[in-house]
């Protein structure tokens, strides 16, 4: 059964417990949209937005979240987005299921549509929170921030890190506990390892499974 509006309405009429289950995150999400539109003008969230856990969006940068996104209820931490300067932008596409993800942005982080995340971390530079640190010449490259591009229909596994300069293409799967750093990955591949240098194509994996 498709997840369309008419089917949801039908199910709500038949089953009132389902209606109550869906109503509370919907109302909390609209409250978040109104709050950010009045008090913090640099954050724009699309309607409708379902919120089951805590949300923290901090910093002077711009944040755009698409329509029909959801922060699910059965997760340890909620969504955390931190931007460090006025030029930094975070763009999240439509229909994303954002579990306890943490995003720390200096320059640019772009996520596509239908991204599914677990407790993971996306970080631009190696070290953040550096306003109290004096820049030493030996550490200069550690302050460089490279943009992160994540495509459509990507699944970020639990406890994974995506660091600056990496490009994760459409339909990829990032395995649990893997660290991606400064590499571009092909479409429809499985990314594992710490550090993750190679990726396995998923077509061949599925074909092998059928044979074995």
């Amino acid at each position: 059964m498709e997840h369309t509006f008419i089917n949801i309405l039908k199910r709500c009429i038949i089953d009132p417990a389902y209606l109550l289950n869906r109503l509370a995150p919907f109302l909390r999400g609209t409250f978040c949209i109104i709050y950010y539109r009045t008090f913090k003008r640099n954050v724009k969230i699309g309607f409708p937005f379902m919120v089951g856990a805590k949300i923290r969006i901090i910093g002077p940068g711009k944040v755009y979240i698409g329509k029909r996104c959801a922060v699910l209820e059965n997760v340890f931490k909620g969504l955390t987005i931190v931007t460090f300067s006025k030029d930094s932008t975070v763009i999240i596409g439509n229909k994303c299921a954002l579990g306890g993800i943490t995003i720390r942005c200096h320059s640019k982080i772009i996520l596509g549509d239908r991204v599914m995340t677990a407790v993971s971390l996306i970080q631009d530079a190696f070290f953040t929170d550096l306003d109290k640190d004096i820049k030493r010449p030996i550490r200069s490259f550690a302050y460089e921030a490279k943009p992160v591009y994540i495509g459509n229909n990507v699944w970020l596994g639990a406890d994974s890190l995506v660091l600056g300069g990496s490009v994760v293409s459409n339909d990829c799967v990032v395995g649990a506990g893997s660290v991606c750093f400064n590499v571009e990955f092909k479409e429809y591949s499985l990314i594992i390892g710490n550090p993750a240098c190679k990726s396995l194509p998923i077509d061949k994996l599925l074909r092998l499974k059928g044979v074995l």
Partner: protein
Amino acid sequence: MRNFIAILRGRLFILKCRCFKKNIQIGKGLRIYKKLSLTGSGKISIGENCIIDGTKGDSSQHVCIGTLWPEAIVHIGNNAKLYSSRILAKFEVIIGDDLLMQEAGIMDTDFHSIDRDRNKPADENKDNCQVKIGTNVCIGARSFITKGVNIGDNVIIIPGSIVTMSIKAGGRVGGNPAKILNPVP
């Protein structure tokens, strides 16, 4: 304003340690932005002009430094910056000047053995399990440093790496287990 409160909080903390806890020595110029907890009865000494803070957006993590025995020693040099990190010592953890540590952990022991009874591990001495870190070291987020590791000067440790072997001076290290990375063009 925030700096002023941090300086005040640092001075009160130093006073409190001087009156009640004789095994802790802290140099002047400490600035505390988020909670600092020092546990255990071993010796802890922190250098001058240190900064203690948490990470932005994460209110559940703070800085914890602890010792398990009265004979354990933790020594941190001058100008250290700790952002919600954890240090635990059973024998000795000695860190040089100019440390930058974010959301990482340093642990001196295995705590339990691999045998079925999970008792204390048999082979651990001070010589095997000491952790020594040089000057000007940067430790990235969500990384871990295990027992018996000797890190040289000017080393950068990438976020998400787990360090099990000693590292020479002046390198960039990442992965699980941590290895030297190829230089980025």
